[in-house]
């Protein structure tokens, strides 16, 4: 089987790969940002649930979380039957929650890195809490968190392959069936190139952003 034909088949899976990737980044970054601010709240009642959530999401395998949401939730007493979800939505939801926890920790580190003098200068100039966050804190945070966010995004590209475990098709799924049906290792190589291409694009994008935020 030619590389072109292999690629054609793998491309059928790339839609899911890219969608899970994009949906996760799109929702997990803002959610992680909000969580990071809450996790730094002075009020323990706000802070504690977020810290607990982050602990659980980072402390258990993503695959377990996928199984839990997809196959486990429907067995919950009383509410279970309302929690039967389309598998693809279940996968997206799980990825968003899992990555939001990681982003929360990254952003928390970013928040901690901001000098107290920045808040004081902003306060003395009369900026409101929201103005301080949006105009002073977040832009400076971005610079600090770009490298770890880049790292996390590249991990995400590869983590998307996990959705095969709940019976969804994606790039790796097709590669595996092709290897079985053609008795050739080539489809794995082509799949690897696909992942490398996505990683390459991401790396370039983040290099650009890092240059832009080099203040």
């Amino acid at each position: 089987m030619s590389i072109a034909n292999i690629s054609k088949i793998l491309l059928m899976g790339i839609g899911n790969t890219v969608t899970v990737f994009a949906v996760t980044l799109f929702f997990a970054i803002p959610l992680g940002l909000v969580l990071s601010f809450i996790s730094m709240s002075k009020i323990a009642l706000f802070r504690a649930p977020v810290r607990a959530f982050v602990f659980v999401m980072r402390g258990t395998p993503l695959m377990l979380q996928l199984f839990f949401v997809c196959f486990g939730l429907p067995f919950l007493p009383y509410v279970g039957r309302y929690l039967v979800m389309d598998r693809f939505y279940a996968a997206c939801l799980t990825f968003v929650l899992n990555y939001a926890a990681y982003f929360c920790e990254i952003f928390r580190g970013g928040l901690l890195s901001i000098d107290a003098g920045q808040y004081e200068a902003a306060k003395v100039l009369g900026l409101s809490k929201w103005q301080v966050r949006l105009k002073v804190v977040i832009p400076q945070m971005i610079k600090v968190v770009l490298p770890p966010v880049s790292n996390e995004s590249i991990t995400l590209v590869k983590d998307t392959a996990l959705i095969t475990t709940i019976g969804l098709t994606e790039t790796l799924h097709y590669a595996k069936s092709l290897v079985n049906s053609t008795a050739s290792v080539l489809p794995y190589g082509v799949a690897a190139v696909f992942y490398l291409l996505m990683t390459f694009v991401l790396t370039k994008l983040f290099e650009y952003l890092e240059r832009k935020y080099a203040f």
Partner: protein
Amino acid sequence: MNIIHAVGVKKKFGGLEVLKGVDLSVSQGEVVAIIGPSGSGKSTLLRCLIELERIDEGSIYVGGRPLVENGVYVKEKEIKEIRRRMGMVFQHFNLFPHMTVWQNLLLAPLSVLKMDKKEAEDRATEVLSQVGLLEKKNELPKNLSGGQKQRVAIARALMMRPDILLFDEPTSALDPELTGEVLSVMQDLARNDATMVIVTHEMEFAKNVADRIIFMNEGVIALEGTPKEIFENTTHARLAAFLARWDAKEQEEGQANIG
């Protein structure tokens, strides 16, 4: 009228009493220098005036309005209005590093005062010229020297047209050869009748520019008076010891500069 009037100010950090009953009045157009050994509460006093720290006891009035009366603070909204009449310049400049000089200057006028864009830009041009940095308006703070950064910080404070400017050791983080440019900007402000409270270790500057000098020691105002009264005082043991140490240090630095 007194722009600042503070009475019986006490402030604790945990168990440590840092201000032990300070009275301070600053009148319109006055330049007050606060000197004293490290840890005597100079910064804390300044920070309390602009509500970066909260006092435990006493009262502070700004422009006749209470900020805190007998340890009870007014409402947050009023605190904001009162703070708006003051500007502060920090030892470490605290410029916003992600913004150009120009953006640093315009941020608060546009987003806090809702000043008209044109008006804000005219004001920015004016204050940047005043501190001699108009040609640096598009630079990021990281491309400026320490002295230039501090001049921008002063300009940023001036944008808000404060009734009073507070300086906390504005030259202490600077290389000795860069202090002059900052002090000369401050001297210009003094000449133009700005009201200023300046915590400083620059004794020459305090002597030449201040109308009044306050010597703080261990959380109280140990002595205050005109520069002449302070620097020619020989009877106050603590002050004499402090000034002697200062002279020794100056000598040493002088020697080092020559050697």
